[in-house]
């Protein structure tokens, strides 16, 4: 029986001012009916372009198919007209996109947008449709179906919006569901629910799923088969378990190894003496500036009695989902935000929030999440690094010397000082951000999701760099993340936060194998690819005899 | 049409229009005119602005009107006599004249207008009333004015409108009287409609006292704010008559060339407009006669007439217009255009030019009445710069111009004044010494000129009943004023009027287009 989708020797050209000629190069791929095929690769590998090509969603002016062909259910769709593609989309092929925030029309009710998907392909028997919409809403387990259809996208959570997307995609019971990183923007627990929903739908409707992701954990949880893409080419395909455990291609192997192992056995350094930082009973209510005449709506509490301690030289991982208050806590510690009650003591002395006195400021520094927003586009690296130090009294000459030292320390050449941020890759920018924080020789470094925006391979390098610097400078660190794997790879202690409160606080071994709180347990259970994790560790331990090959030198610094 | 119109051609044009009135007047038709700017009111009792009288003189009438050669012509007064000593004026009023609202016109209306209404609202009427000892009405159709002293100019006062007394019974505050907007007169046309910003519509008064008149059915005054739009309206036949100031003078030259379009310079014999450049005699160095003479020599007045006013104007070297019966060119001093002489006079006055050739600096307040006067101000600046006098133009609007001139807050000032038919009413107070720091109005002694001999001559001439004696007195006054050049008389203004050939009897008196248009008719 012919495959649902057959792609032979497909090449898609990028516009001429792009960094490489072809987005997709000589790709051949098959998707069978009812199968979940995962398309894995780093950003820029062409996986989304390939998926879009199948449904003819390539932006006409920028990308065009130059070779090969695509057959959908035996029909050659490569040269399909927009009209013929239109009959295919929504009817035979359903789509789910990554950004739930912007994928829905803000000015139309959710129900209407689902009903629209039906109307596009049905002859207009309006009556049946609203019932069908309710059915779809229930099928995707959205809460309070009768009312939610009248709500607007901005009134729904990220997870709920993704469920609406799924409802729309499966409205006409398509044969193929293309999901382009549907859960990347969601919290771990929500992600787990959505993945289960997709598998359940695959079961019920028997549709094939082309699932695009960069997270091997997700691949482990959902994929029947896997295709790995690198710079436009498919370098390996095979059954999920085979590829994940014995990857044939060296690039795949390197990618898999870059995923931090969720190991609980590493004995963390026990912090001696009184803690460098101690936070007790911190409360902060989030007063949204509403117009005066508006009656005070319920006050959301960002921090509800949060407290933690960080020993000298100790690294604490602060783990929580979006809205848990972990970033707010970080900002209070760094002095970017104020709080209503509770206190923070640093090096034995009580410190204020935004009105912190100048002497204390340099001693706590911060590294930010978004590499593209954390460096001022108009300033050269020299100024980014030296300005704060000079303002805090360091003479220019010494600042320059320290800058050069730190640049090499974070793996960048001295010439970088004269260049502007837009000349660097994401990974390099995070290194510059780190150097900037270290310029003031802080005792405590607060890192707010420093690696979340990076590809897995780059992520691994930065984590190693952080580990080295921590060891060399004896730096204490508060590492904020939503990813338990990253936390376990870095932390001496793991603190889990939920709704502004501390749910769990203990060593990685204790939190990851015997979590006390229900929330920590749920969080752990939701980590994608847990089954694959245990199998991987057995293999990992076998490799443990020879020294852990630090992955830094494998990938050239300038990537 | 040659640029100069010798007075001979003037009289020919006049007689022509008189001759054509004899041929068959065909009644009926609508006359389209332009009023610019839109007047605040058309009640000529309330104000005497140009646009107001242009419309109002068709609705209201005075006792007399005046021919082109300044002879009084009967209007509401059928006949009149003046006592030998010039003290008693007796007017016999026309009978069976009705106001537009049907009320009869009687002597009561004349007395009410001259004693109460006009002096309350019009400063000039107040000055005329000061000359009158008492006004008597022996019967309903006779009015007798007795003056305090002989005042020959009094005969020229009677084109001012008479207002219906019956509408103002019991009214004391005439300025805001509700009746002011009723526009009830005795004239050949009645007020019909005023659509603000668009047009004013007057219709034929069926029971007008002049038998068979007026010939026209109605008159429309179009309101068009932009000069170009006005020229286009005339060119496309939407409008029949263009008055001076409606369009640029050289546009008038262009439009005059169109077929079936006539051009006349007649119709200003009563008002006799003259263009001035005031010199503030109270400000140094303009108090020095030699400086004033130098300025007179520095300005080429023929250039002003030919280039700026496109030939519409005549040279005048004294306070009176060429149309005045008392004009005596023989006694006037002509300061011909001679920059060398101007420089010599300025050196003599001790005003040596500094390093970059500037003797002294003055402020010129231009007349904000459109581009013509603006260009003349710019020319004056260039002309005086040539003799080392730097002129700064003061940009201001009408209220600002009025305030600066009347409060002597200027060095040079541009102006034009209606010198009117009789010097006693027209220009005497402009050259009579005044105390205090306010000249009252821009028609007054804005120059701050003061000469005891001139004061005496003008006062005496005003009240001299004997015509010959008045002439000699005014000649002596003109001789002194012209020599002392308190101001520059730039030109004797000609306000041309353009009209379609089909419009007949447009100009039939000294008041020109300010006439009541009872005689105007349209040839088919």
């Amino acid at each position, binding site marked *: 029986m012919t495959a649902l989708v057959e792609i032979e020797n497909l090449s898609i050209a990028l516009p001429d001012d792009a960094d490489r000629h072809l987005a997709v190069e000589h790709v051949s791929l098959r998707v069978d009916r009812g199968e979940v095929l995962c398309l894995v690769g780093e950003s820029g590998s062409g996986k989304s372009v390939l998926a879009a090509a199948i449904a003819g969603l390539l932006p006409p002016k920028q990308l065009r198919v130059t070779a090969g062909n695509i057959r959908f259910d035996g029909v050659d769709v490569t040269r399909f007209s927009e009209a013929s593609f239109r009959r295919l989309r929504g009817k035979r092929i359903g789509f789910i996109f990554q950004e739930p925030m912007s994928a829905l029309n803000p000015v139309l009710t959710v129900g209407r947008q689902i009903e629209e998907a039906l109307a596009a392909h049905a002859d207009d028997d309006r009556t049946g449709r609203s019932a069908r919409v309710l059915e779809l809403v229930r099928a995707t387990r959205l809460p309070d179906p009768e009312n939610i259809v009248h709500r607007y996208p901005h009134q729904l959570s990220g997870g709920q919006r993704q469920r609406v997307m799924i409802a729309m995609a499966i409205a006409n019971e398509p044969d193929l569901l293309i999901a382009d990183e549907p859960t990347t923007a969601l919290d771990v627990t929500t992600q787990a629910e959505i993945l289960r929903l997709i598998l359940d739908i695959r079961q019920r409707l028997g549709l094939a799923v082309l699932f695009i992701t960069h997270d091997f954990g997700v691949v482990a949880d959902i994929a029947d088969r896997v295709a790995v893409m690198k710079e436009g080419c498919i370098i390996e395909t095979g059954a999920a378990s085979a590829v994940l455990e014995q990857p044939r291609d060296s690039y795949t192997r390197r990618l898999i190894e870059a995923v931090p192992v969720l190991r609980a056995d590493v004995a963390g350094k026990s912090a001696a003496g009184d803690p460098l930082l101690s936070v007790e009973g911190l409360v902060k209510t989030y007063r949204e*500036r509403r117009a005066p005449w508006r009656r005070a709506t319920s006050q959301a509490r960002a921090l509800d009695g949060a407290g933690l301690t960080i020993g000298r030289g100790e690294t604490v991982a602060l783990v929580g989902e979006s809205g848990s208050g972990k970033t707010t806590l970080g*900002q209070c510690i*760094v*002095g*970017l935000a104020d709080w209503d009650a509770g206190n923070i003591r640093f090096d034995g002395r009580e410190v204020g929030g*935004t009105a912190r006195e*100048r002497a204390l*400021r*340099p001693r*706590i*520094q*911060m590294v*930010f*999440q*978004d590499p593209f*927003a*954390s*460096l*001022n*586009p*108009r*300033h050269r690296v020299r100024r980014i690094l030296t*300005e*704060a130090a000079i*303002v*805090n009294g360091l003479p220019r000459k010494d600042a320059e010397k320290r800058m050069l030292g730190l640049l090499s320390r974070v793996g960048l050449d001295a010439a970088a000082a004269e260049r502007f941020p*837009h000349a660097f890759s994401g990974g390099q920018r995070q290194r510059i*951000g780190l150097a*900037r924080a270290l310029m*003031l020789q802080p005792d405590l470094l607060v890192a707010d999701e420093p690696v979340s925006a990076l590809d897995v391979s780059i992520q691994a390098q930065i984590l190693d760099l952080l580990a080295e610097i921590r060891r060399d400078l004896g730096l204490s660190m508060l590492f904020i993340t939503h990813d338990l794997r990253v936390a376990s790879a870095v932390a001496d202690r793991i603190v889990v936060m939920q709704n502004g409160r501390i749910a769990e606080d203990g060593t990685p071994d204790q939190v990851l194998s015997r979590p006390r709180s229900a929330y920590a347990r749920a969080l752990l259970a939701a980590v994608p690819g847990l089954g694959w994790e245990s199998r991987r560790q057995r293999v990992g331990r076998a490799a443990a005899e020879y020294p852990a090959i630090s992955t830094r030198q494998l990938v050239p610094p300038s990537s | 049409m040659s640029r100069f119109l010798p007075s001979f051609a003037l009289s020919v044009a006049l007689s022509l229009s008189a001759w054509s009135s004899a041929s068959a007047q065909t009644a009926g038709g609508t006359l389209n005119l332009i009023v610019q700017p839109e007047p605040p009111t058309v009640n000529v009792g309330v104000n005497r602005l140009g646009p107001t009288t242009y419309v109002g003189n068709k609705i209201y009438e005075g006792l007399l009107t005046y021919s082109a050669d300044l002879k009084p012509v009967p209007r509401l007064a059928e006949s009149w006599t003046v006592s030998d000593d010039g003290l008693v004026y007796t007017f016999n009023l026309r009978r069976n004249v009705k106001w537009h609202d049907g009320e009869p016109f009687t002597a009561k209306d004349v007395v009410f207008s001259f004693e109460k209404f006009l002096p309350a609202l019009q400063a000039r009427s107040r000055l005329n009333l000061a000359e009158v000892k008492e006004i008597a009405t022996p019967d309903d159709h006779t009015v007798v004015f007795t003056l305090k002293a002989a005042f020959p100019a009094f005969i020229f006062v009677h084109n001012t409108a008479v207002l219906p007394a019956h509408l103002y019974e019991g009214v004391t505050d005439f300025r805001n009287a509700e009746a002011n907007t009723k526009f009830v007169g005795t004239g050949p046309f009645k007020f019909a409609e005023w659509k603000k910003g668009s047009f004013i519509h007057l219709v034929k008064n069926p029971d007008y006292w002049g038998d068979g008149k007026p010939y026209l059915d109605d008159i429309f005054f179009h309101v068009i704010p932009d*000069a*170009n739009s006005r*020229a*286009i309206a005339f060119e496309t036949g939407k409008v029949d008559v263009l008055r001076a100031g409606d*369009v*640029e003078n*050289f*546009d008038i030259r*262009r439009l005059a060339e169109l077929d079936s379009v006539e051009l006349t310079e007649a119709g200003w014999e009563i008002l006799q407009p003259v263009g001035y450049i005031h010199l503030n005699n109270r400000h140094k160095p303009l108090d020095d006669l030699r400086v004033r003479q130098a300025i007179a020599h520095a300005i080429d007045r023929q250039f002003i007439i030919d*280039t*700026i006013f496109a030939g519409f104007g005549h040279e005048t070297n004294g306070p009176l217009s060429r149309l005045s019966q008392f004009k005596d060119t023989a006694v006037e001093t002509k300061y011909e255009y001679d920059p060398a002489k101007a420089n010599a006079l300025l050196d003599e006055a001790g005003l040596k030019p500094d390093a970059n050739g500037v003797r002294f600096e003055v402020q010129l307040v*231009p007349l*904000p009445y*459109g*581009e013509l006067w*603006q*260009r003349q*101000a*710019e*020319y004056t*600046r*260039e002309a005086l710069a040539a003799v080392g006098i730097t002129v*700064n*133009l*003061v*940009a*201001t*609007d009408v209220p*600002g111009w009025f305030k600066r001139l009347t409060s002597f807050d200027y060095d040079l000032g541009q102006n034009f004044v209606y010198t009117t038919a009789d010097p006693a009413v027209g220009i005497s107070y402009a050259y009579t010494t005044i105390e205090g720091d306010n000249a009252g109005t821009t028609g007054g002694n804005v120059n701050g000129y003061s000469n005891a001999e001139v004061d005496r001559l003008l006062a005496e001439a005003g009240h001299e009943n004997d015509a010959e004696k008045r002439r000699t007195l005014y000649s002596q006054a003109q001789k002194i004023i012209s020599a002392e050049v308190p101001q520059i008389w730039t030109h004797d203004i000609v306000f041309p009027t353009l009209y379609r050939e089909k419009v007949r009897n447009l100009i039939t008196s000294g008041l020109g287009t300010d006439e009541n248009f009872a005689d105007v008719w349209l040839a088919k």
Partner: protein
Amino acid sequence: MARPREILSRNPGAAVGVALLAAILLLAVFADLLYPGDPWRMAARPNLPPFSPGYLFGTDMLGRDLAAGIAHGARVTLLIASAVTGLAVAFGVAVGAVAGYFGGRVDDVAMRFTEFFQTIPSFLLTVVIVAIVAPSLTSIILAIAVVSWPQIARVVRAEVLSLAGQDFVRAARVGGLSTPRIIWGHVLPNVLSPVIVAASLMTATVILIESGISFLGLGNRDFVSWGYLLGTGRTAFRVNWWLSTIPGVAIFLTVLSLNLVGDGLNDWLNPRSSGRGKRA
């Protein structure tokens, strides 16, 4: 950011705009060399038609050389336009930056103040100010600046509002930099591109307002600007049409070039919105 030459080649409009603007600037700068002496000087016979010998654009009713008027007028018009833009940008950036960075109550007050000036019919307010404060170079510049700065303030506020939330601003605060230093050194440089685009388009409207004022006869008589030439020439429109047509064309070309340069700048400075046209 793509190199300027590449932008110009890709966007012909901007190239035309830059060429035109350069020509006009040159004309303004070298006005004294090309037409020495006072443009008011009555050089020749009045009403000479254009292209008559020695007088490229002919002469006006008083025999003044129109070409000299245009050249010197270029200088005055561009002076007014740049002065107004300078004032409006300075004031607008100040208000916008403070409103955007501090937000809350300060933002409300500043925005109400900006809104106040945008509600009043701007041209009417300008006319009133010019008529009241006896038109001089400074009064005209002030009058137009008063109604022009709100546009800049709105653009700057929107930009600063989004920038203030960026991580590099937080990094500066953590580094212990003072607020004024952060606003001046870190935030404002990033506001440059939208301000430049808004300013170039605003300069265009300023020239139109100035010519409108002169058309109504409110311009100052001492200096010759294009608006003044247009205003005085217009009554002679049917006889010597060139007196107002040529200044009109001069204004049109300048405003056109400013618009095109504005669009070009927009493409060059924020490529993300390249080919997107004017940001509102």
